[in-house]
């Protein structure tokens, strides 16, 4: 029973351990890459294996031994990145593979880590035959070769194709790096100090193989075109190459066997320098022709117009093209003289310059184009005499002047533009060039009084205060008028309100005449009172008021038609009574009196209701 328990516990433990390893799964990711997928025998291929994940204490990956490659372990590097707080690290292992045979090979990469085997993507490399490169035994006019360092299968040379150039003449500097050893990294080239020269790089870099003293070397060639700028002694400084190679120990160690060399080698960084080269730049022969502007080389010149005929005042393009070998950049525009008889009838404007540099066969050359805008002023047929261009030919050792072909151009009669009222005005690109009088107008004479123009009226407070006064005045007047009208209105209102009261007091006077039996006076005052009432009530003048006016007024004011009818009737009675020959009885008078009174009351009431 005990035994079975032990077994049980053991199984459990094993399971736990296995589970433990399963849970702490250290996930690794392997990526393999090469710097080139096609190579040649003897040309090294760099294989980089990157492992990311839990990368502590990783062993070296295994590259399944391929007998057709010499594999050298070059080193490892660790890369840690921190992105948004997350840290990830990866380790890269570098190997150098030297193909020994042609063919296509698969390179499997794997790593055994903590019991798990991780594999990378398989890389396929194709190995071709050696490329045949021409050996540099037939170099042009090579004067002296100056090898910098012998031994250990590495050296550099620098040579020039001429040591006594003229200024502005191309000197080709060829730098070569010979290498027999196995390089572990891309060699670094540092260009020499080239003070006193204008430099143009020549591409492409040369790469080939050559045999010297029975030993095969790989050669890298870099060419530059140098143009001396100043005459005299100039020095091309040393060029430098840095590279790292395998160091083979030189002892007579029994272990110095190619078998062991791959495993017991160290890296060494080598720096190789060329010796400086002295150049004697020759000055150009003097005296130089007057129109020589510094161009050195061999050139041709071409000139053309963009049209064969053109109307006046329209732009014409003259293109001058200079091409050949030499430093194209330094060519200066050939001068067109405005005084020359050719250009008397043209106005010369801007020039646009463009150049094309070519580097065929490691010789600098190309073409430069000058496009000059001309505006013909007169109609007619004009010919442009040949344009001269003088340069120095170093091969001939002398100055050459080349001419373009003469050109003909026909100028047609131009369209009459609106600017022709002033024939000396020109218009091009919106800028009007005026032919003005010869000089500025004369100075002004001394005045009697020298006035000082301070121009600060807008700043003086007095000015702004002046604005305020009329404004206040007007506003004051406005208010005054308003008040006045209001007052008047009040008066009118008051008068209207008191109209009936006033009328009643007038009527009282009339009443007195009833008892006195003074018919005429009674009726006169009766009517007058009514008229006055109407005048007060409706603020109209009582002068020349007739009953018709009153009727019109009352109906305008909205008095009821019945009331107006009543008024008409009563008034008629009053008129009859007033102008009748017979006397009016006191009852009649009283009746008329009451009628008028009631009318007044009715009208008053109706006006009140209206409001």
């Amino acid at each position: 029973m005990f035994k079975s328990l032990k077994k049980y516990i053991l199984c459990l433990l094993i399971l736990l351990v296995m589970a433990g390893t399963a849970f702490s799964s250290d996930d690794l990711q392997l990526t393999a890459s090469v710097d080139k997928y096609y190579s040649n025998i003897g040309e090294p291929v760099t294989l980089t294996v990157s492992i990311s994940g839990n990368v502590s204490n990783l062993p070296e990956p295994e590259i399944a031994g391929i007998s057709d490659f010499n594999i050298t372990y070059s080193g490892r590097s660790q890369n840690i990145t921190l992105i948004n707080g997350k840290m990830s690290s990866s380790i890269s292992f570098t190997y150098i593979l030297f193909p020994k045979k042609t063919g296509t090979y698969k390179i499997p990469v794997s790593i055994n880590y903590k019991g798990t085997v991780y594999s990378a993507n398989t890389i396929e490399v194709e190995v071709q035959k050696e490329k045949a490169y021409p050996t540099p035994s037939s170099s042009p006019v090579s004067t002296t070769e100056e090898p910098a360092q012998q031994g250990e299968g590495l050296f550099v040379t620098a040579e020039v194709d001429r040591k006594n150039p003229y200024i502005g003449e191309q000197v080709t500097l060829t730098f070569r790096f010979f290498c027999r050893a196995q390089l572990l990294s891309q060699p670094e080239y540092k260009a020499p100090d080239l003070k006193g020269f204008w430099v143009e790089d020549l591409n492409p870099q040369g790469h080939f193989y050559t045999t010297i003293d029975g030993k095969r070397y790989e050669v890298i060639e870099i060419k530059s075109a140098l143009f001396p700028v100043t005459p005299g002694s100039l020095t091309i400084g040393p060029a430098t190459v840095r590279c790292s190679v395998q160091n083979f120990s030189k002892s007579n160690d029994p272990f110095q066997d190619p078998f062991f060399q791959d495993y017991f080698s160290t890296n060494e960084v080598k720096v190789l320098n060329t010796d400086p080269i002295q150049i004697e730049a020759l000055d150009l022969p003097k005296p130089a022709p007057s129109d020589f502007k510094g161009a050195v080389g061999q050139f041709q010149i071409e000139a053309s117009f963009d049209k064969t005929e053109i109307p006046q005042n329209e732009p014409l393009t003259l293109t001058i093209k200079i091409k050949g070998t030499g430093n194209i950049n330094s060519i200066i525009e050939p001068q067109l003289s405005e005084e020359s008889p050719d250009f008397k009838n043209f106005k010369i404007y801007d020039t646009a310059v463009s150049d094309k540099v070519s580097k065929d066969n490691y010789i600098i050359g190309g073409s430069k184009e000058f496009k000059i805008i001309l505006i013909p002023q007169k109609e007619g047929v004009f010919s442009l005499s040949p344009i001269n261009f003088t340069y120095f030919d170093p091969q001939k050792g002398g100055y050459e002047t080349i001419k373009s072909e003469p050109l003909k151009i026909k100028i047609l009669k131009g369209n009459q533009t609106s600017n022709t009222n002033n024939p000396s005005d020109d218009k091009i690109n919106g800028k009007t060039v005026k032919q003005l009088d010869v000089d500025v107008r004369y100075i002004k004479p001394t005045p009697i009084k020298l006035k000082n123009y301070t121009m600060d009226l807008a700043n003086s407070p007095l000015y702004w205060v002046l604005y305020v006064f009329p404004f206040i005045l007007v506003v004051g007047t406005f208010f005054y008028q308003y008040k006045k009208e209001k007052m008047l209105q009040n008066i009118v209102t008051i008068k209207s309100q008191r109209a009936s009261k006033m009328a009643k007091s007038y009527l009282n006077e009339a009443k007195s005449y009833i008892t006195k039996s003074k018919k005429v006076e009674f009726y006169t005052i009766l009517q007058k009172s009514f008229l006055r009432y109407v005048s007060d009530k409706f603020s109209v003048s009582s002068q020349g008021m007739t009953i018709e006016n009153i009727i019109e007024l009352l109906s305008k004011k909205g008095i009821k038609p019945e009331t107006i009818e009543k008024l008409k009737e009563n008034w008629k009675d009053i008129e009859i009574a007033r102008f009748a020959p017979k006397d009016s009885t006191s009852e009649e008078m009283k009746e008329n009196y009451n009628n008028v009174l009631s009318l007044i009351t009715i009208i008053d009431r109706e006006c009140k209701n209206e409001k």
Partner: protein
Amino acid sequence: MRNSIKTSILLILVCIFIFNASALFAKDNNISLLDKANNYYQAGKYSEAITSYEELLNNGIKNPYVFYNLGNAYNKKGLIGKALLSYYRAERILPRDQDIKHNIEFVKSKLKDIEPVSEKSIFLSVYRFLNINEWAILNIIIFFISMGLLFLFITKRNEIIFWVFFSFLLILFISSCFFGLKIYHRANLVPAVVMKAETDVRNGPGVDYTNCFKLHEGSYVEILRNEGGWDEIKYGNLRGWASEQSLEKI
């Protein structure tokens, strides 16, 4: 007592007289200085003329004829930047003077930079027709007339008067706009002339900013603002920053 009052009054009068006399005298001094400067110019002694004109300006005289003559003298010496500066200053005071305008056009033809196309509009012509003081006076006159008409209208209540007043009110509105614009421009749009033979106009206020375009002596620009020794300028449609020493304000 009486005597002391008399003497004190006399003393005050004498002081006033002396003050006025000295003012008159000073003015006389300036006129003779101007005469001297003009004589130098006539004699062809332009450098001396320039010195005298500048002295006159230092005395505080701001006179368009002085500016104009100074401009002429600078032009004779070939200093087109300073010449144009003086002409522009004269033009500011007398915007309608044909001599000043002619000379500006003449000297401008010597400029290296192509002048930016300026819009021609009636608005601009009217705006430039009067200087700021003239606009101020015109404005206040129209204002007075309008107020007078308003006063009439309030008292007379005539419809014709109202319409005349209304039209003057419109004219006042237009005139105030021009006047206001002149005041605003005087404060915010500072015109200047490039003084250096060639100056780089950059994309920002400092030498570490890239170049935007180049300007040459005599070009007319407008300064928008200043930051740390650099002025932001407007040249036609182009904008950039130029060092403040390369410009001089009109």
